[in-house]
């Protein structure tokens, strides 16, 4: 709504939305009033089935065995737990095309690594806390790597540039 009314750019997250505006064009007090008005008139997203994005995944990540054993599961059980449910993409952040998806089967909820890796390869399928996601680019990262995919989550030449958008349904297909 903020964007539809051309007030500025909005950045949604779990339980917040960042509303950007030019404070020389729109006085902060007016922006606050507009934000309040929009918040009070907001309704739940329109009904309808969001898009389903399927991610073919090879479950052979370096943290797979360790994450399974700390969950008290075998590797095949962890794979079934991860691939066996549909996730919702809550929002994107951290890096271009990185969708925070969830929530995980409670049995496989696991904290981030104590020592983040300096380089996580693009396409890594990972979990952290109750979330799962796919690294779109090579980058440092502290999530637990359980698998990989060839699907490209970010491509600046593509429109839209990201594969998964906020609100999408996401399913990992074990292979």
């Amino acid at each position: 709504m903020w964007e539809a009314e051309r007030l500025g750019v909005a950045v949604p997250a779990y339980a917040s939305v960042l509303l950007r505006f030019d404070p020389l064009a729109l006085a902060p007090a007016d922006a606050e009033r507009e934000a309040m008005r929009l918040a009070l008139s907001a309704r739940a997203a329109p009904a309808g089935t969001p898009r389903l994005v399927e991610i073919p995944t090879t479950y052979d990540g370096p943290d797979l065995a360790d994450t399974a054993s700390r969950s008290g599961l075998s590797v095949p059980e962890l794979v079934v737990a991860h691939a066996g449910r549909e996730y919702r993409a809550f929002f994107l952040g951290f890096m271009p095309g990185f969708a925070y998806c969830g929530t995980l089967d409670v049995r496989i909820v696991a904290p981030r690594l104590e020592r983040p890796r300096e380089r996580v390869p693009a396409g890594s399928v990972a979990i952290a806390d109750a979330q799962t996601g796919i690294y779109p680019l090579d980058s440092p990262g502290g999530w637990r790597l359980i698998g990989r995919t060839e699907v490209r989550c970010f491509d600046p030449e593509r429109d839209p540039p990201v594969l998964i958008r906020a609100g999408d349904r996401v399913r990992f297909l074990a292979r």
Partner: protein
Amino acid sequence: MIRILASGARATIQDPGRFAHLRDGIPTSGPMDPFAFGAANALVGNALAAAALEIVGLPFSFVCEDRRLVVATGRDVALRGRDDIAGWTAAFARPGETYTVIGGAGARFAYLAISGGITAPPVLGSRAAYLPAGIGRALRVGDALPLGTARVDPDRAGVSLAPPDLGASVRTIPGPHLDRFDEDAVAAFFDAAFRVEAASDRMGTRLAGPPVTAKGGEILTSGIVAGAVQVPSGGAPIVLLADHQTTGGYPVIATVIAADLGRVAQRLPGEVLRFARVDRERALAALRADRELLAAIA
């Protein structure tokens, strides 16, 4: 067209930034020192949204195909042609003649604007390079960049602005996560002299100094802006800058005002950074003064 003869350590095309894809997780990028960038455009008569070059690691040499106005801005920079031309002063570039952006010991982020602006094809609505995602690339010797039609006659050479000083402290608005810091921790933060770490980059300026104590661990990840002073669990603050992530989960003790972002970015590793408190009205007044200054010369 300009042709690059010496590329510096890392020269990229930047415009004010890519704001339309924040919800896709794509950072704004854009100039590390927005005022120096805007001034460069204004001094050569460009629109403030025109694309110019950001250069790290001078010298940077180039030649223009046709008559253009050129200017170097940033900290401790000048332009060398047939004569030396001070930084922050528009100069007439003769076709085919070599010009070099040179820097003193204080140089950090230098800007080179050329009348007409750089008109390389935009990616996702912006010409701002974002190297971590392969948007744009570092420029190389031999690169030729297209230029737009210049809005002003090259006779405008000589127009100049006084380079801004770095300031003893940068102005911040406390918060937004003041509930995560005790009063003593906030007071200590504003008393502290931090030192800029070598690991600082376009994502942010990393600081060393007395550890800042936050309470309550991480916050629920939310959208974040340039200037945010994040406090990770180790207590060493990071001031987020042009290439910062679109969302963050560390508590933010204070936010550097837009007018002072360049004063953070232009500090070299080892230099001291202090924070001062201002209110929203003073932050707005500072931004308005900068824009009026640029509008007056544009």
